[in-house]
């Protein structure tokens, strides 16, 4: 008998039929929504960085499903292609060559970057256009391009630098977690395409459980700091990573260690908005009250007479 526990992979995606609609919204940008009568089961995509071989099948599947094309690029000195997210490329494999200071081993860290689908989405908080960004009760954060005005506020709200504004139609784009597929019981295209099952999709509970098994396995292989990336600063995310070095996420192409919505954004969308409206209202009301109390400041006939005297009274 082998003395290691064999960890089975779940199917690359798990069919969860949800039929996403307006009735499933828990958050809607620049609007208030009443919570849906029946909340959907939270879903999550789990990306096991330790299993990723960097083949970019997920990128191809993403382009294919979303019917996007990107121009042929140039080598920028790394395997990253395209070198960054674009309005058409919702996911990018970020390659890092990292020398582990303990083992002196070169580790090739490959992180699939893209929208994290935060439980507390900064993009949605910043968005001024009602309904342009929505969050479904299963946790998916989605952009509604008919309502997007292209202001770029989501870019400022996002703690992960994800949304990109198209210079063609001036609207914001990012990973949808294949909400259109999930709505009809299909998993995300990237998860379907992943040949090593590094990307799996299911309910968030299932994915956490699967992550636990993976982390146990990694620890048994000497990765003492293996762990799950589900950052609490943004209320957790619906895209999670299994990291072999979860204690230092920043080595994975600057994955933030403790992401949260920037306090500048919080002040802007919070205090400034209310204090600003109050200040403008107060100035208007003070003016009105002053006029009622003091009355108009009128020029008197004596003033006119004095002016005539000063100018010599000549007609």
């Amino acid at each position, binding site marked *: 008998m082998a003395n290691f526990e064999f960890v089975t992979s779940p199917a690359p995606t798990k069919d969860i039929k949800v039929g996403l609609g307006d009735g499933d919204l828990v958050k809607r940008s620049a609007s208030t929504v009443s919570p849906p009568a029946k909340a959907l089961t939270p879903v999550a995509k789990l990306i096991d960085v330790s299993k990723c071989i960097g083949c970019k099948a997920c990128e191809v599947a993403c382009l294919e499903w979303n019917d996007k094309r990107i121009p042929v690029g140039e080598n920028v000195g790394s395997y990253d292609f395209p070198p960054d997210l674009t309005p058409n490329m919702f996911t990018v494999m970020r390659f890092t060559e990292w020398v582990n200071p303990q083992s002196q081993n070169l580790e090739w860290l490959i992180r699939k970057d893209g929208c994290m689908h935060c439980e507390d989405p900064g993009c949605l908080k910043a968005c*001024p256009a009602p309904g342009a960004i929505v969050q479904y009760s299963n946790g998916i954060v989605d952009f509604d391009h008919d309502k997007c005005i292209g202001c770029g506020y989501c*870019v400022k709200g996002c703690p992960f630098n994800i949304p990109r504004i198209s210079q063609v139609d001036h609207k914001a784009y990012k990973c949808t977690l294949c909400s259109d597929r999930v709505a009809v019981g299909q998993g995300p295209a990237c998860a379907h395409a992943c040949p090593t099952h590094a990307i799996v999709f299911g309910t968030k509970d299932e994915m956490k459980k699967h992550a636990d098994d993976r982390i146990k396995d990694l620890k048994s292989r000497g990765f003492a700091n293996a762990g799950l990336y589900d950052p609490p600063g943004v209320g957790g995310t619906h895209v999670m990573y299994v990291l072999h070095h979860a204690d230092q996420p920043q080595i994975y192409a600057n994955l933030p260690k403790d992401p949260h919505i920037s306090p*500048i954004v919080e002040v802007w969308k919070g205090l400034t908005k209310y204090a600003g409206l109050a200040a403008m209202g107060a100035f208007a009301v003070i003016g009105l009250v002053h006029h009622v109390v003091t009355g108009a*400041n009128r020029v008197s006939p004596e003033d*006119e007479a004095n002016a005539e005297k000063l100018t010599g009274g000549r007609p």
Partner: protein
Amino acid sequence: MTAYDVESGDQVHPGRPVTVDRYTAGARLNHWVTAICLVLLALSGLALFTPSLYFLTGLFGGGQWTRTVHPWIGVVLFVSFFGLFVRFWKANLWKAEDGTWMARMRDVLGGHEENLPEIGKYNAGQKVVFWAMSLLIIVLIVSGFAIWDQYFAQYTTIDQKRWAVLIHAMAAVTIICVWIVHVYAAIWVRGTISAMTKGRVTGGWAWRHHRKWLRELVSGKK
């Protein structure tokens, strides 16, 4: 030598009542272009400032159009206000009597002109409005360029854009408050608005509110 606060075109016409030319046609046109821009900027900016005013985007043809035209109107305002600045800056320099005027704010707000020092073409309140507008417009155009993503996205970092959007919002709120003071003062002090519509005020108005300026014009005429 003409006094610091006498601007080109300022002139007294003796008669009953005395009339005083206060703003040339160029100055008035310049003012109203700026004013229209400021109002349009406030409306389009407030639409994106708070969801409760998002409906104002309808005035500009929807959200996309509001986002598109707002910065351009800002550029027009900046150029237009620069014209006003060149015209008015000298007469808005701070003078000793302005401190006294400010210290007697109670009399100012009570309409007791008899307790106030004689003042030039602009009183301290007008000067504060002028310099506040000048400063805030610079802050707004600089922070505005930092968040004008259609053309200038690549010149700033995301964190700089966050600061810019916060500063832009706070400066905009402040300038709207300054604007309310400006408009209210023009309404409260009767006889003021004709200065910017017809270009002239009555001698009595000038005697009551800007006596030093009136005396300068009269003595300059002699």
